[in-house]
């Protein structure tokens, strides 16, 4: 069962939408598994000045997208990279164990958008992000 916080973020998702002229875009998940998250970033002076998401998935997928975007909005890239799924879970006052993977997806979606931003800027994202951004083939971010 979902916490009230989850239900609130599901019912009133923060930062839902698109940024047409985004500086970075990340998409993770796939239709077959039933979760897709797409993150749009606007970055100025190393700061995430705007962030939007679009999510296909369950209540937890929507709520973690909303919460994760809230948590990194206004933060520097370095700070945003520190966001882990457990911080998202905690901020949502918990998630059912079967839904923890949604929070992992949210973390990955933001990383993925930041990597896209780096690439567009001609910077190698690996030292900054700590990974190649190829989540699908990665063992480090163990999706449940």
């Amino acid at each position, binding site marked *: 069962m979902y916490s009230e916080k989850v239900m609130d973020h*599901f019912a009133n998702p923060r930062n839902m939408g698109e940024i047409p002229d985004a500086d970075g875009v990340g998409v993770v998940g796939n*239709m*077959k598994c039933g*979760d897709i998250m797409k993150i749009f970033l606007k970055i100025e002076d190393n700061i995430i000045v705007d962030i939007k998401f679009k999510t*296909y998935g*369950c209540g937890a*997928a929507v709520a973690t997208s909303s919460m994760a975007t809230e948590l990194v909005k206004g933060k520097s890239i370095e700070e945003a990279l520190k966001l882990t799924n457990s911080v998202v879970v905690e901020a949502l006052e918990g998630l059912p164990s079967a839904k923890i993977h949604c929070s992992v997806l949210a973390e990955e979606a933001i990383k993925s958008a930041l990597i896209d931003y780096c690439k567009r800027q001609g910077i190698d994202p690996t030292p900054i992000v700590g990974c190649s951004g190829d989540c699908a083939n990665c063992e480090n971010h163990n999706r449940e």
Partner: protein
Amino acid sequence: MTLKVYADNAATTRVSDEVLEAMYPYFSIHYGNPSSLYSLGREAKIAIEKAREQAAALIGAEPNEIIFNSGGSEADNTCIGVYARFVAPKKGKHVISTKIEHHAVLHTLDALKKDGFEVTLLDVDEYGLVSPEALKKAIRSDTSVVSVMFANNEIGTIEPIAELAKITREGGAVFHTDAVQAVGHVAIDVKEMGIDMLSLSAHKLYGPKGTGAMYIRRGLYCPPLIHGGGQENKRRAGTENLAGIVGLGKACEIAGAGLEKEKERVTALRNRLVEGVLKIPYTRLTGHPTQRLPGNASFCIEAIEGESLILMLDMFGIAASTGSACSTGSLDPSHVLMAIGLPHEIAHGSLRFTLGHYSTDEDVDYILEKLPQVVDRLRAMSPVWDDYIK
């Protein structure tokens, strides 16, 4: 979120006022143990026998062919699991069922497999229909039980039970049907249809949760799943759920009396709902177009996920259900949606409304007003939807 429209009658039903009124005195006034010798006990016993007649009448059985228990799951476990183990030494260890059964059947079959049984699960077509031809081919001399559900709980498809029962009899096996979704909603005559065993559950026909029954044809012996006292003619031990059984009996009586009229009324509501929902683009009906339970209106809505749909409908006071993966807590959508050949990405958008006795025209109007808004909102959130509108 106060409830405005309850459209999940396949999950459970509201206990009707008449049923509750019938049950009520059996908690604190006529509370005797039906096995007791004194008046209070004898009265309780009489109440149970009356309920047995009521339940039997609804499905064309004799009262002594009805055994009360705790619900549909227990009935399935008994009629399939216990019976198959019991007859295995003389008959063999092969059991036939289908891919779209309820988990109470499928997991009973899994347990049988662990004990060395061979289980054949018949495929269904895109509408969820089991093929009598396929059954004919699957049945063997060592097949003890064939179990095919009367009607499916997710997509509402009604199976050709009489035909399947006939093939089973000709094949020398015993025919069981999980009729939990059908009893009280469509006409059933176990004798005419040639059914040997049947499972039913009170809470699907406006009776209480936690009470059910099995029909076991006279002459067929199925040992008890629960051993102990001599209740239920030694077929099911445990102090009888007196009020529950009285409620089940009353619910059967009411359902029987109004069956045809109610079926017509609910079918009309259902048809209007289906028509309206299908006006939403990229939406399809699941299950058989006509051979289906009166109240069942089940769909797949593309580009959105079922659990979100249910949660958002709930925000508008509409109770419905889904067979999406997220709702089941597993990675896969419901086995029924897989069995009818839907791809994962379509099945994730499954949505089921099941109308019933308390459903009204206004309910259908309300759903048809709110559902498109909810779908729009979720599609607006969905990165997948962008691909559709491009």
